[in-house]
């Protein structure tokens, strides 16, 4: 009695009761379809959020002046909380960080020719380009020497370039910020939302020293608005943040009992929350799928029991002509597994079309993963074996004489 024979018999008996087989399969179809689709959804959602967060920079940290206390409180205590270029320099040397980049930011009048608008201009150092992974499409980025020289150079986003130099090559041209001319040396590649909420293609970047000297015109040229730092990929964000805090507290000579005069903000906490939510949602959806599989499995068991009773006489005949108990067991087990696997395949097909439909209509890419399909087939088989075993064993344990007497 080989496998092919067993399968032929299974298909034959399924075909003999088409409606019943279809209805029995339905539970498994729904179960597998939901499990596969939900696995795919969970996976795609995680990937989507992961990508979103990656573009924001999950290992990005913002160090900002001022702790939990208000400026007024600090003023009363006679302390002014600031961050300086030297703070940034010190952080940049931390081994747990890829880099730390200071920034000065403000809204200024930007103009070229007849175009004139108020925009955010950020003064940065080359370290910012590194940690934010900003690259140029055309031209170059400014370097350390330019920063030291407070060079009036400017790197702009694509949209800014389009706005001011529509169709013309912006490189070498000038943008006036607060009536100071800055020469365009590079156009940033790409577009998209940044971790600080700004749009990459709308960036206007100048050397931080030039921003200080010509735009902010601060009496304290060392002060910066914030420091952007990036943790190394293999370092836990918590550890990196701890290092940052220690360095700044040390530099600011804050006593052990006193609170920080700065804040460290991290996107990783958001990422973790998002991850927890997606995992939770995926688990919940998976649970629903598992429940429908369970119900489907019980349906299979029920029908197999009915089938065993219905075919008692046939079992007797088979035993009389030489079927061993194992032959009978295998036959009924195979039938349950075939029903489940067939149901599983239909379920996968339904899940695939569901994924296609979602991708098409919901503007959210969902595709079945190979692992999901394999897991589903495995599930279907396990359900078949698990719920088919009891009826099959019952059939195999019947006595031939009782079966033959059964009407």
């Amino acid at each position, binding site marked *: 009695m080989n496998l092919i024979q067993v399968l032929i018999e299974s298909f034959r*008996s399924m075909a003999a009761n088409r409606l019943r087989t279809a209805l029995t399969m339905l539970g498994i179809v729904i179960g597998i379809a939901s499990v596969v689709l939900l696995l795919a959804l969970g996976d795609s959602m995680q990937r989507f959020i992961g990508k979103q967060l990656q573009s924001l920079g999950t290992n990005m940290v913002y160090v900002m002046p001022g702790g939990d206390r208000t400026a007024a409180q600090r003023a009363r205590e006679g302390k002014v909380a600031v961050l300086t270029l030297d703070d940034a320099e010190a952080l940049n040397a931390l081994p747990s960080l890829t880099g730390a980049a200071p920034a000065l930011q403000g809204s200024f009048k930007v103009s070229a020719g007849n175009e004139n608008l108020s925009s955010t201009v950020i003064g940065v150092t080359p370290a910012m380009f590194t940690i934010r992974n900003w690259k140029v499409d055309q031209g170059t980025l400014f370097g350390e020497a330019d920063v030291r020289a407070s060079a009036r150079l400017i790197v702009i986003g694509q949209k800014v370039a389009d706005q001011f130099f529509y169709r013309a090559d912006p490189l070498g041209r000038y943008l006036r910020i607060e009536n100071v001319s800055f020469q365009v040396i590079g156009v940033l590649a790409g577009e998209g939302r940044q971790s600080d909420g700004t749009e990459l293609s709308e960036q206007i970047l100048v050397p931080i020293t030039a921003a200080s000297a010509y735009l902010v015109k601060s009496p304290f040229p060392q002060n910066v608005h914030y420091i952007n730092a990036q943790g190394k990929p293999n370092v836990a964000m918590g550890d990196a943040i701890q290092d940052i805090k220690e360095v700044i507290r040390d530099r600011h000579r804050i006593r052990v009992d006193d609170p920080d005069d700065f804040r460290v903000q991290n996107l990783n906490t958001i990422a973790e929350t998002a991850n927890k939510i997606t995992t939770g949602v995926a688990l919940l959806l998976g649970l629903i799928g598992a429940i429908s599989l369970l119900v489907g499995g019980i349906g299979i068991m029920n029908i197999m029991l009915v089938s065993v009773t219905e075919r008692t006489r046939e079992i007797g005949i088979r035993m009389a*002509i030489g079927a061993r108990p194992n032959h009978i067991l295998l036959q009924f087990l195979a039938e349950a597994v075939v029903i489940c696997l067939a149901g599983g395949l239909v379920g996968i097909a339904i899940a695939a079309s569901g994924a296609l439909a979602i991708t098409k209509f919901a503007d959210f890419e969902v595709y079945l993963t190979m692992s999901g399909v394999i897991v589903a087939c495995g599930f279907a088989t396990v359900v078949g074996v698990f719920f088919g075993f009891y009826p099959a064993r019952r059939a195999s344990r019947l006595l031939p004489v009782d079966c033959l007497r059964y009407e």
Partner: protein
Amino acid sequence: MSGPLIVIRGVTKTYLSGSVETPVLHGVDMRVERGDFVSIMGQSGSGKSTLMNILGCLDQATGGTYLLDGADTRTLGRAALADIRNRTIGFVFQSFNLIKRMTVAENVALPLIYAGVGRAKAQARALTELERVGLGALGKRTPSQLSGGQQQRVAIARALVTDPPLLLADEPTGNLDTHTSDDIMNSFQTLNRERGITIVLVTHEADVAAYSRRLVRLKDGLVLYDGPAQEGLRQLAGALPAIAAGVAP
């Protein structure tokens, strides 16, 4: 292979339903030599079907010994008994017991499939066996498309496809008309004579028993007569009017 095919000694069978014991066989002794043709007769309740089930290894005796082809069947497990039913015994039932979903040829091939013979080879041998019973052309039909006599011939082909030394038939003509019954019994006789197959059949019809060489009559779970069929049937024919006379008011 020598010695008797069937030896039963002191076989008893008691059915249990709940706590009620119903003894059916009270100690039956019987030997069947190879090549014999035995009819078992008896009124309903005499235990002839029970004896048949035990002989066919479909049921186990409560007590006594049963040696089939030299093997002590009471010591064998279910798989081993299945193998015996597959290779040593061929069954023919009153209600044919063909599997309706399968074609005639598949029905006949099934014992070979269980014996582990490949599909193609099993089908070929099934067709040969069907030709022997004169139904070679009907292999692709389903049992319901055949007449009763034809179905019983298919059952005979199925019983013989594994070349068993023993054919057990339980009221094989019970569902057939007289003419077809004669046909079936003639083929039994031919099988017995030409292929040397040992046949044991249960019947309540004297005409059917007349085809056999030997008769065993059971009454209330005991052997009442065991001897030549002709003699036994004559006794039975003589007894019947006496019984009728005794019962009549």
